[in-house]
């Protein structure tokens, strides 16, 4: 119990004293995971829309595969991207392994299935009656689609937050692709893993609190944007 209390105390003192390394790690975590979420959103939301509004053979199977990939272990996603980005791999010439950009790619790959799935759920959540009504009112197909998307935006933002949450909290891909290099690819989760293995339990808990804190800020910010 003592260690948990210590963790709280240390978290506050780190935040109040604006410890430069903690600030830097926190900023890096936030930027990498926000970028990964942005990239994944740009890919996944249009893709989800495409799958929802088009009828094609194997649609059910495709959706099952996407939903299965929700459970993609972070280490496996990390390993997959590691093999792609390694100098011996197909994209090795880009030199992105052990870089923040590589980590963005890894986290984006990890959460794209989740975001596609959430987009599908959001769009199918819009009542059929609404789209029928719009069409009855003389709307074109494009107008109907845009209306459905607008109706679904609350759920889609929810999906984005879920994706961001998975990105910023995962350690497997960040560790394998980023390598936990101090001052370069060390993020909150990999720092927590390192501090735990070095026995600095209170510091690990403090970093965990900070992670939850910024997750809350991002969630609130996205909801404010959505409310407008």
């Amino acid at each position: 119990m003592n260690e948990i209390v210590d963790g709280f105390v240390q978290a506050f003192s780190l935040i109040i004293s604006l410890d430069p390394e903690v600030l830097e790690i926190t900023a890096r975590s936030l930027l990498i995971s926000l970028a990964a979420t942005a990239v994944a959103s740009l890919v996944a939301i249009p893709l989800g829309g495409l799958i929802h509004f088009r009828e094609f053979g194997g649609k059910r199977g495709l959706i099952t595969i996407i939903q299965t990939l929700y459970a993609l272990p972070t280490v496996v996603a990390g390993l997959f991207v590691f093999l792609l980005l390694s100098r011996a791999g197909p994209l090795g010439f880009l030199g992105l392994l052990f870089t923040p950009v590589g980590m963005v790619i890894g986290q984006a790959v990890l959460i794209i299935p989740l975001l596609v799935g959430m987009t599908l759920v959001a769009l199918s959540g819009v009542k059929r009656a609404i789209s029928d009504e719009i069409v009855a009112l003389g709307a074109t197909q494009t107008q109907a689609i845009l209306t459905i998307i607008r109706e679904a935006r609350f759920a889609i933002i929810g999906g984005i937050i879920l994706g961001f949450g998975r990105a910023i909290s995962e350690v497997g891909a960040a560790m394998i692709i980023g390598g936990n290099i101090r001052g370069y690819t060390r993020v909150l989760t990999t720092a927590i893993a390192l501090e735990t293995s070095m026995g600095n339990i209170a510091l690990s808990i403090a970093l965990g609190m900070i992670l939850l804190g910024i997750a809350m800020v991002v969630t609130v910010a996205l909801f404010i944007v959505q409310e407008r």
Partner: protein
Amino acid sequence: MNMHFLSTLHGGTVIFLVALVLGAILISGCTTTNPGQGGAQIPPTTQSPSLPPHKGQKLILATTTSLYDTGLLDYLEPLFEEKYGVDLLITSQGTGKALEIAKRGDCDILAVHSPDQEKAFMDGGYGINRRCFAYNYFIVVGPADDPAGIRGMAPQEAFRTILGKGKAGNPGIFFVSRGDNSGTHSAEKNIWKAAGYNYTSEVQRSGAWYIEAGKGMGETLQLASEKGAYTLTDEGTYLAYRGKLNLVPVIEEGDILLNVYSVITVHAKNQPVEKITMANNFVNFLISPGIQAKIGEYGKEKYGKGLFIPMNGGCMRFECDCTTPASETGPLTSFK
């Protein structure tokens, strides 16, 4: 006004804008966060301005968790960077993973402590200029009341005793193994072999007494402490953890407990000569007298004793090279 503007847009556009803003934040953020500025030991008052900007070439050093966790490399990093104007990026991985990264050409330097694995790596032609730079000893730690009664024994004899009593079902006799193919795990396997056992058939899965953690050294020590078990550890990690553990050193002597650290220039396919030359600079930096002295001093203040013993040019008995300047830039095929 802005709010009204947003509310007239379609939901999809709003989401697109959010993504765009996030992207913009990232790009602007990239210019303000200067990569490569570490500073764990630097108090807030003396930060950034005194740190040199990292501009030059990036050099990736892959190392093992037990070496990295002692903090030695973080301590030496700024000294090297200042001298050569490069950005040294240190990634700590399990020994197996570090060697694999090196084989794939994803790092430029290796700092490891697993002689057998290093030799196989060198024989495979993946590395050049292997130099030993420091050593210390593994120790066997266990509960203070020493339930197996092994205190003062030679390591091999102690292992035989633990195995014998453990297999016989004596309650309270446990041994925790790293079980992760790390350098420490290799050292443990060597001791079992020297004690006359076949590791896979006679030690692994031979009973509840033998626990394979599959974790780093720190976590393995914590597990051993919780279980009241014995374990093999490097001295540095044990000293760093000592205050949190109910474990004391029970065996500290024996040649088989020797733990030698080496540095290797990675020589992967298509690796640019500049990287190899700079990696050689790091090898020479580690074996230079000034840095050897610093390695010897490291940890004395915090733990009351140094964590590493530098080679200081005297490594004959370890059958390794700690003096020849690293100058080769390619493997010598005739040299074995």
